[in-house]
């Protein structure tokens, strides 16, 4: 532990897949990952709101992260997961195509996204990082999920 502290500023990322791209989110925000389970559609909500689901007795909203980020929709596969984020005590599930790993990335290795990211609204992106030679787009979940709230309410 002491060694890590000296190196300081290591970000642990949950790396997941949306379409062909890899995305990452701060592990502190991602509470858990669970298999895709039944989601009940909530009428009169934006298309990216997939609905609500039962997470151990709690009703939590589920977002289709692809739609939320403006990416083309894709079919559910056996590897589809719900990544549950927790912000301000509120849990929100995000449907992702697959969850790959938890990667440790030095804060220094995170670069501003610049023009590298296509298709995803820049305000949702914190930066990009290389993990095993692949580009991971770091999402700012607070932004992704907060903006959604504002638009709906």
């Amino acid at each position, binding site marked *: 532990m002491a060694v890590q502290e000296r190196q300081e500023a290591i970000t642990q990322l949950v790396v997941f897949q949306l379409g062909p791209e890899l995305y990452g989110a701060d592990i502190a925000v991602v509470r858990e990952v669970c298999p895709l389970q039944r989601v009940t559609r*909530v009428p009169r909500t934006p298309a990216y709101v997939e609905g609500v689901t*039962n997470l151990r007795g709690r009703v939590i909203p589920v977002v289709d992260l692809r739609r939320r980020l403006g990416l083309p929709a894709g079919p559910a596969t056996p590897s589809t997961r719900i990544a549950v984020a927790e912000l301000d005590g509120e849990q929100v599930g995000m449907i992702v195509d697959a969850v790959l790993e938890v990667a440790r990335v030095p804060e220094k290795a995170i670069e501003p996204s610049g023009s590298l990211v296509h298709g995803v609204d820049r305000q949702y992106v914190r930066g990009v990082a290389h993990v095993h030679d692949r580009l991971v787009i770091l999402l700012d979940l607070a932004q992704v999920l907060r903006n959604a709230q504002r638009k709906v309410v």
Partner: protein
Amino acid sequence: MGNGDFDLSEEDIKVFLDEAEEQLQVMETGFLALEKEGADPEQLQAIFRAAHTLKGSSATLGHQKMTVVTHALENVLDKLRKGKLAVTTTLVDTLFACLDVLGTYRDEIATGQDSGVDPAEILARLAALDSGETGENASARDDAADQGARPAGQGAAFPWQSLEPAEKARVQEALAMGLQPVACRIQFDQDSAMPSVRAYQALLVLADHGEVVRSWPSQQEVEADQVTDHLDVLLLTSDSPAEIRTGLAQVPEIEVAWIGPAKGLGAEASQGADAEREPEERRAPEPAREEASSGNGGGGRNGRYGRTVRVDVDLLDNLMNLVGELVIDRTRLYQVLTRLEAERAGDEVTQVMSSALAHISRMTSALQDEIQRARMLPLENLFRKFPRMVRDLAQKLGKDLQLIIRGEETELDRSVIEEISDPLMHLLRNAVDHGIEPPEERVRKGKARTGTILLEASHEENHIIIVIEDDGRGIDPEQVRAAAVRKGLLSEEAARRMPDSEVINLIWSPGFSTTDKVSDVSGRGVGLDVVQKNIEKLNGSVEIRTQVDKGTRFRVKLPLTLAIIRALQVSLEGTIYCIPLNSVVEIDRIPVSDIQTVRQREVFVKRGQVIPLLRLAEVFDVQRPEGYEEPEELYVVIVSVMGRQAGIVVDDLIGEGDVVIKPLGKFIGDVPGIAGATIMGDGDVAIILDIPGLLESLPADQTHSETAWVS
């Protein structure tokens, strides 16, 4: 053994605190009733019993100050009970003051910290009351006087004196071995069909905890069905009273009226701690004996407390989470079952698994429901602290008023109850302080001298409504305008143009207060803005209606969060929706050919009334599969809210049941027509409809009964 007698476990203290809370509550309710309705013998008996019980248990605990004060209180109550004292304001005030002191002492026990409150002052006040009675010196009375309260023909004390020499020797031996003699009185429920069986069961349990030296009635008598309404037992044990109590909890139809160290067995001499309490001990030789008398008249007590246990909320939360896990696993098992059934249909293993799973499923749902219910508390728990507060405040401010409380049985999730306490308290204070006029002013205005404050809770659709209404002076929009201008909230011009209804709402502005004098009641800078903010934090809202000289009405609307409602479950394209049953008028099946079109809207006529149809599939924009054909008959759920009716068209009816409303979460926020969601027995989430919200989407003229132009 030294202080062994007071070697109390945390559990003992907890039990004491819980009991003390109950007794203090009984007393408070009683005192309020005493003041309002005068001396009612039954009420007085209840108060007396409470004081008595508290005295006993505080003595057991060794909290001498509490014992002394309760004893003095008991003397006063006893005289009241016997009609030797009259109910006066001074008396009631003293009783309340006494209650406060006792509350402080209870806190001392809870925190283990000395409050520094000297009992001398309250003792003097009680003594002054006590001596108001002519002649007799109260402290000279002994407990024999209590005999009057006991049913005739029953010994009040534990009958130690009838111990056989061999039994006494056994007790001494046990003491030497470090065992405690514990006395226990078990009261049978009055309606118990077989008290002797219960007595036998209780004896068995007690034997598990130690050695039963003797019981009254004896085991032989019990076996011969010779029992009265109680059983006294002398037990030698190393277990704590709390442990024994827990053990006895498994025996139905009984209540442990008292349990604790048995004294009066010649053991005190070896227990120094008792000697310290000598003066008190002389009057009250054993808590056991004291308590015994309170147990006797305890029919009402049994009824009220006998069937409940206290549970830590954390425990309920944990249980809830555990059940949640079960629900998930159940869903998983179902998935396995589906695969099994596909692969090896008809197989015996599959069938067994199927039926076992169905059972687990039902059990899990039932478990979930019950735990959720257990989290609900009636508002009574909150409301009951208000009468005292309002009374004290009214007296302080010289107001003459009555507080009417209604709907205290309305249930709300515990967490909401905790959060709503302060805002309600504030609104009530406002009503007393600013609302109700002084009596003379009321009389001058031709109003009843006594003002009235109404505190009422009720269910409304998917919310709890709490109304606080007074018949006081109301809020004058002119004064609000003036104050707003003075405080720079509005320009004079703007204030003049603003309609009265909007002006009134200025009272919610931060820093707004119409009274200039700072009373120590409600003018301490905490304004209504804070009240509003706190209520909104709970996703609630508060509205005000006021009329000068008629009164003010605050209407607090709160979401239920976890509240349970009865709902009709309907389905639409395979998804289940819940319709709160309280807005459902009837369910009908109508042929499509009965549907008429009026002003481009579908309606049907029912008993001469035109009822607009609301096709849920359209309202919610539900995708129908290709080739969907409308059935010839439609299921219509006729709902009514505030005189507006509509028929909601659904695919199918599933049934009705209790559902627990859960919010959709901040991320989704408020959706018109949707009140929340609920978790169904199979773990799926169903959407709960908000009928008023849905009806709002209909043009108003369509939803009123329009009988006129039909016929």
